[in-house]
């Protein structure tokens, strides 16, 4: 049955497309629900946050990484292990601030935007804002408060997609979200 085998898609590949397409449908729905791009960004970040909070456990369970000694090590783990594991890409860590508390992740092929073209009039929309929220949520669960935002986005015609992460502070006594 050669036909069967030619039909069966590679599950890994398809699963990626499934996520990308589902995410696209979500963003489209959000744009329908809110006309304001900023509000869409906020919603995406919030959902990302919730995902990140859960995802970190999965990450720690599967990646077997040990405690990071400094923020540089953390940056490497995010880029080389986490992004690789979940998004199949390895961003480049660069543009460190002098104080070593801020860096950029340069993403060449953002898989979230594989089938995406931004329509006119959405210059404020950060399509992949879910990533910011997910990073923030995940980092918070390992006692680090970080600020994450998009600096450049290939969807908007920039040469590369750049995420900027800034270390804010160490959270000493982690209080579960929503209970402080």
């Amino acid at each position: 049955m050669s036909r069967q085998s030619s039909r069966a898609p590679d599950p890994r590949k398809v699963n990626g497309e499934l996520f990308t397409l589902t995410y696209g449908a979500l963003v489209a729905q959000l744009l329908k629900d809110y006309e304001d791009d900023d509000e869409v960004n906020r919603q995406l970040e919030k959902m990302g946050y919730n995902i990140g909070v859960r995802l970190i456990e999965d990450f720690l369970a599967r990646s077997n990484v040990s405690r990071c000694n400094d923020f540089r090590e953390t940056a490497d783990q995010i880029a080389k292990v986490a992004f690789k594991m979940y998004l199949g890409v390895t961003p480049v860590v660069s543009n460190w601030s002098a104080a070593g508390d801020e860096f950029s992740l340069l993403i060449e092929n953002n898989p979230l935007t594989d089938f995406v073209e931004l329509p006119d009039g959405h210059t404020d929309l950060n399509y992949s804002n879910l990533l910011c929220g997910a990073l923030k949520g995940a980092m918070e669960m390992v006692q680090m408060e970080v600020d994450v935002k998009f600096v450049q986005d290939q969807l908007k015609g920039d040469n590369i997609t750049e995420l900027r992460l800034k270390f804010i502070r160490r959270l000493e006594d982690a209080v579960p979200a929503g209970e402080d």
Partner: protein
Amino acid sequence: MAQLSDAVLFEYLHIEIVGYIHRCADENEKDHCIAKLESLGFRVGQSLVERFTRESTRFKDELDTMKFICKDFWNSVYRKQIDNLRTNHQGVYVLQDNKFRFLTQISNGKQYMDVAPKFLAFPCGMIRGALANLGVNSVVTAEVSAMPACKFQIQIQRT
């Protein structure tokens, strides 16, 4: 093209979508939420199946299409196959999944039966969307009698 590869992400994203749709609706708009989720699923199923079958030959008949949904489609989306497929040969198909992925995070038994529809609307839409793009119009409903088992009923619409 870069490949994202993790099934966990899809699961978590689905949970967030369900949460979001219900967050921004009132108590009396429940049906509306289900419809919204269903149409999101439809959209995803439709575009997904287009990519799946790009290089495959035409399906022999309706049953062949259903088998594709039960095996390849289900496997790619939920990492397992449908456990049982039944049909009355008059346009009704029942797909049984004994351990439906989206229900495995909810405790077994009857306690949370009332939340099950929330998590089944999107999958129902996906099936309907996938079939629609393969030229089969249908109505898809889901039924849970004991978590995490679930039955999807597909009723072919012939007009």
